[in-house]
C-alpha cells in the first residue's frame, strides 16, 4: 500500500538555508523550543468535501494536531496553547504578524492551508522564524485524502529537520507483539501501528506464538519468529501482500532474526544440540552461511549500518556479554566489560553506538556504548525492560518494559516505552493491548 502512495513535493519559495533558531539535540533538552502550530486554514467547500470523504469535521485542525503532538513528544519543542493565538489561521499563513506571535513567546510558527483539488488533498505549510520575522521553509504536498495523517508526519519531519539539522522520525511505523491473557498462557499477535500509536492493525490471529518482529530497512518486509506447528522458525512476512514464508531449511529452532542494512540478507541464530550459532541467508539466492562456530550461545546479531561488522550476544566467556566481529565471522572481540550481564546489542543507524540491555543486581537497564565498548551510558533502570530498537535517525530508542507481579502473581503488564539517547524524555507509547518486542521502521518517505 505504501509504495502506491503518491506524494508531490513542491517548494513554494526558495529560501536561504540559514536561520537564527537552532535546536541542540545532542544534550538533554530541558528547555524545549516554544513554537506555535497554527491550525491549517481550510476553505468551506474543501472542508465539506473532506468531511464527506474522511468523516473528519476539520481536516486542517486534525493535521496540525498531528504535527503538534509529534513535536511535543520529541521533547525538543514546546507547542504553545492554541487558545493564546491572536491571528486567524488563514491570515497567519499569508503574512504572520510577528509581534503577535512574539507576544506569546513563540520562537517559531507553523502555518498552512488545506484544499480539495481534483479529488486530491493539497496541503501547503510554512515555517516562520518569529524573532527574525522571516520565512524559513515553504512546501506543498498533493496526495490522496486518506493519506492525511502521513502529511502531518511528513510536515513534522520537515520542521524537525529544518530546526535540528537532522532527519526526523515521524513518518515511520512500529511493528510489535501484542500480548493478552494470563502470564502463564499469553496470546501473542503481530501488530503494526504508526509511530504515534494510531492506525493500529493486527497482522496475525494469535493462533501461534510469535516473537521478535523486525523491519527490513529498505522495504515493507518483516522477519519474525513463529511457533507455527510448534516448530519455532524464522519467517518472512510481506506486510503489503500478507504472504509468509519460512526462512531456510534448518533442522531445529531458528530465532533472533534481523535484516542486513541493504535488506538482502537475514541474520539469525540456529540452535542445535545445546549450541546456538549465527547464520545468514541471502534472500535472493537462498545461500546459507554459518558465521560463528562456537559451543556457546551466540545470538541477537545486528549489523553495522555499512554491513561490514556484526555485533552479537554470546556467553562464551561464561556469561552473556556483547561482542563485535567482521561480517565473515573473523576478528571476534568482546566489547562489554562492565559489571553484570549484557544482551540484545543493536547497532545505531548512525554507526557510532550500540544500544543494549544490561542486567545487574536484579535490575534491568537500557544503555548505549561506543562500538569499541567504551563510553557506556545507562539511560533507564527498571524491574524488567529489554530489546531496544533505534529510531531511523538514531536519536530515540523504543523498548518494552514488564511489571513485577504481586504476591498472588497478579498485576503483570508489558508496555512499550521510548527514551531519547540523552536519557531524557522517557514516554510510554499507548497500545490497545499489552505490547513487547518493538521494531522501528525506516522513514517511509524521502
Amino acid at each position, binding site marked *: 500500500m505504501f509504495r502506491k502512495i503518491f506524494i508531490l513535493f513542491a517548494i513554494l519559495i526558495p529560501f536561504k538555508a540559514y536561520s537564527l533558531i537552532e535546536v541542540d539535540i545532542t544534550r538533554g533538552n530541558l528547555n524545549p523550543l516554544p513554537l506555535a502550530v497554527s491550525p491549517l486554514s481550510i476553505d468551506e467547500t474543501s472542508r465539506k468535501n473532506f468531511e464527506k470523504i474522511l468523516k473528519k469535521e476539520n481536516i486542517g485542525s486534525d493535521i496540525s494536531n498531528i504535527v503538534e503532538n509529534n513535536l511535543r513528544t520529541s521533547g525538543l519543542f514546546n507547542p504553545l496553547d492554541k487558545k493564546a493565538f491572536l491571528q486567524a489561521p488563514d491570515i497567519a499563513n499569508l503574512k504572520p504578524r510577528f509581534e503577535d506571535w512574539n507576544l506569546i513567546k513563540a520562537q517559531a510558527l507553523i502555518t498552512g492551508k488545506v484544499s480539495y483539488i481534483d479529488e486530491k488533498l493539497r496541503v501547503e505549510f510554512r515555517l516562520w522564524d518569529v524573532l527574525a520575522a522571516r520565512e524559513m521553509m515553504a512546501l506543498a504536498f498533493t496526495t490522496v485524502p486518506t493519506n492525511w495523517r502521513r502529511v502531518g508526519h511528513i510536515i513534522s519531519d520537515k520542521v524537525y529537520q529544518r530546526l535540528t539539522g537532522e532527519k526526523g522520525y515521524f513518518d515511520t511505523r512500529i511493528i510489535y507483539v501484542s500480548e493478552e491473557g*494470563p502470564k502463564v498462557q499469553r496470546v501473542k499477535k503481530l501488530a503494526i501501528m504508526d509511530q504515534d500509536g494510531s492506525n493500529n492493525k493486527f497482522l496475525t490471529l494469535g493462533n501461534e506464538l510469535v516473537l521478535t518482529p523486525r523491519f527490513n530497512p529498505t522495504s515493507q518486509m518483516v522477519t519474525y519468529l513463529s511457533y507455527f506447528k510448534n516448530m519455532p522458525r524464522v519467517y518472512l512476512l510481506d506486510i503489503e501482500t500478507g504472504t509468509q514464508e519460512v526462512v531456510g531449511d534448518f533442522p531445529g529452532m531458528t530465532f533472533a532474526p534481523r535484516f542486513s542494512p541493504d535488506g538482502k540478507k537475514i541474520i539469525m541464530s540456529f540452535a542445535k544440540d545445546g549450541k546456538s550459532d549465527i547464520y545468514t541467508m541471502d534472500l535472493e539466492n537462498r545461500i546459507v552461511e554459518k558465521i560463528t562456530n562456537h559451543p556457546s*550461545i551466540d545470538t*541477537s546479531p545486528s549489523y553495522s549500518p555499512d554491513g561490514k561488522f556484526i555485533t552479537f550476544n554470546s556467553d562464551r566467556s561464561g556469561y552473556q556479554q556483547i561482542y563485535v566481529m567482521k561480517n565473515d565471522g573473523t576478528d571476534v572481540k568482546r566489547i562489554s566489560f562492565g559489571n553484570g*550481564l549484557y544482551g540484545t546489542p543493536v547497532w545505531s543507524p548512525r554507526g557510532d553506538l550500540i544500544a543494549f540491555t544490561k542486567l545487574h543486581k536484579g535490575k534491568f537497564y537500557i544503555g548505549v556504548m561506543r562500538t569499541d565498548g567504551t563510553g557506556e551510558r545507562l539511560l533507564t533502570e527498571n524491574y*524488567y525492560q529489554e530489546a531496544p530498537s533505534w529510531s531511523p535517525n538514531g536519536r530515540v530508542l523504543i523498548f518494552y518494559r514488564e511489571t513485577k507481579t504481586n504476591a498472588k502473581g497478579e498485576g503483570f503488564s508489558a508496555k512499550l516505552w521510548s527514551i531519547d539517547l540523552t536519557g531524557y524524555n522517557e514516554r510510554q507509547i499507548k497500545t490497545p493491548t499489552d505490547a513487547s518486542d518493538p521494531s522501528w521502521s525506516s522513514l517511509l518517505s524521502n
Partner: protein
Amino acid sequence: MRLSKILKNTLLVLTACLVLTACATKKEVATDIQGQMQGDVYTGTDTVKYLADGVPDRVFFATNESILTTASRETLRAQAAWLRKNPSINVVLEGHADERGTREYNLALGERRANAAKDYLMTYGISSDRITVLSYGKERPVDSGSNPLAWSKNRRSVTVKAN
C-alpha cells in the same frame, strides 16, 4: 463527627490487622522457600506431574545454568527406564527459562537445558530419534510470580509424551 471517629478507629484496627497479616505471610514464604529450594534450584513438587508411577515429568535448573543436579539425573534415569519399557512412546523435551533474562538468550538457554536432559536420556539408551527438543524460552512460565521461588519453578525441562 462521631461517624468519622468510628471510621478512623476501624481504619486503625484494619491497618493493624494488615500489618500483622503481612508479617505472617512473609514468614511463611521464607520457610516455604527453605523447604522448596536448594541453592536456587527448585526441589519442591508443586508443579511436578508424573509420566507414570514414580516417574516425574520435569527437572529444574539453577539461574543461567543447564547443569543437571543429582535429583535431576535421578528423575531422568526414571524417565529413561520408563521409555525403555514403552518403546512406542516418543517424547518432546520442552526447555524453559525464567523471566529474568532477555528473550532471545532465554530461547537459546531453554534449548540448551532441554538438550542437557536429552543427552542424559541418550546415555541411558534412549535413541535420539525418539526425542524432540523444543525451547519456549521465558514464554510459558508455570508460576506467574515475580520472586525467586516462582523463577526456580520456571527454570525447567519438561518431558511430554509426543504420541
